[in-house]
């Protein structure tokens, strides 16, 4: 079980790293931390408290906080979808903007699929069963043409976490290597 204090520390450290701020309203902030803690206790990862989980890590990967959409949302609206992370301008004005959902509908739909169910991490004896339940997410290797950062995921990131290059600067690596897991 993670504590609220750990959730807070992690969010503060992440905001600092990326030059963001946490929402300026203390009641909201506490609510976000409680939601993140509940989700981490429930699913094993800090899923976005404002979105519906499938309970399946591969399906939920893009909405684990900080989600894939945070950086482009802050760049465009000054705030993430939840309004947990904001930029300096929003922090100082205290006016939280409306942020539309950037997550593609086809990914949102996965939370309602029947096979998305098994939420627990696979233990040794359950490995075979977990293999059957593994969702069909096709992961690929992507590299950032600007800095060389490599990531093994379904889609390339919206923004390179290393050099901040845009998604358009990512290219797929054509690899013959087989990856399991």
């Amino acid at each position, binding site marked *: 079980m993670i504590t609220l204090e750990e959730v807070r520390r992690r969010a503060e450290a992440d905001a600092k790293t990326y030059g963001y701020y946490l929402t300026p309203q203390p009641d909201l902030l506490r609510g976000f931390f*409680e939601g993140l803690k509940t989700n981490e206790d429930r699913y094993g990862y800090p899923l976005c408290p404002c*979105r*519906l989980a499938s309970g399946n890590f591969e399906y939920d990967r893009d909405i684990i906080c900080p989600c894939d959409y945070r950086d482009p949302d802050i760049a465009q609206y000054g705030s993430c979808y939840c309004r947990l992370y904001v930029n300096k301008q929003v922090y100082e004005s205290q006016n939280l903007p409306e942020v539309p959902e950037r997550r593609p509908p086809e990914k949102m739909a996965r*939370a*309602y699929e029947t096979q998305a*169910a098994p939420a627990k991490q696979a233990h040794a004896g359950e490995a075979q069963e977990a293999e059957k339940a593994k969702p069909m997410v096709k992961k690929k290797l992507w590299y950032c043409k600007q800095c060389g950062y490599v990531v093994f995921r379904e889609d390339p990131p919206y923004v390179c976490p290393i050099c901040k290059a845009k998604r358009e600067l990512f290219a797929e690596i054509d690899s013959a290597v087989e990856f399991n897991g």
Partner: protein
Amino acid sequence: MNISKVSGKNKKHKVFLYALSTCVWCKLTKQYLIDSNIEYEYVDVDLADEKDKQKIRDTIQSKGGMLSYPTTIVDDKVVITGFRKDKLNEALEL
């Protein structure tokens, strides 16, 4: 489906809220409806079972809503996505 009903003096409109138990904006919507004395029903979608989740998805989509929470449906036709006091006030004549 585990639907909760919250009593209120104002029963002029049928109000149904699709919420997440972890979501701050859903909690604020619930509280705003309570503070406005609106009678409403809600379901916490993250706590629903799979079959109910699919029914909820079909219902929201059939009314033209997005799968974002909170989603408030007033009188089975007006769909309000997010905690939008202005839109709630308009639909509920507050």
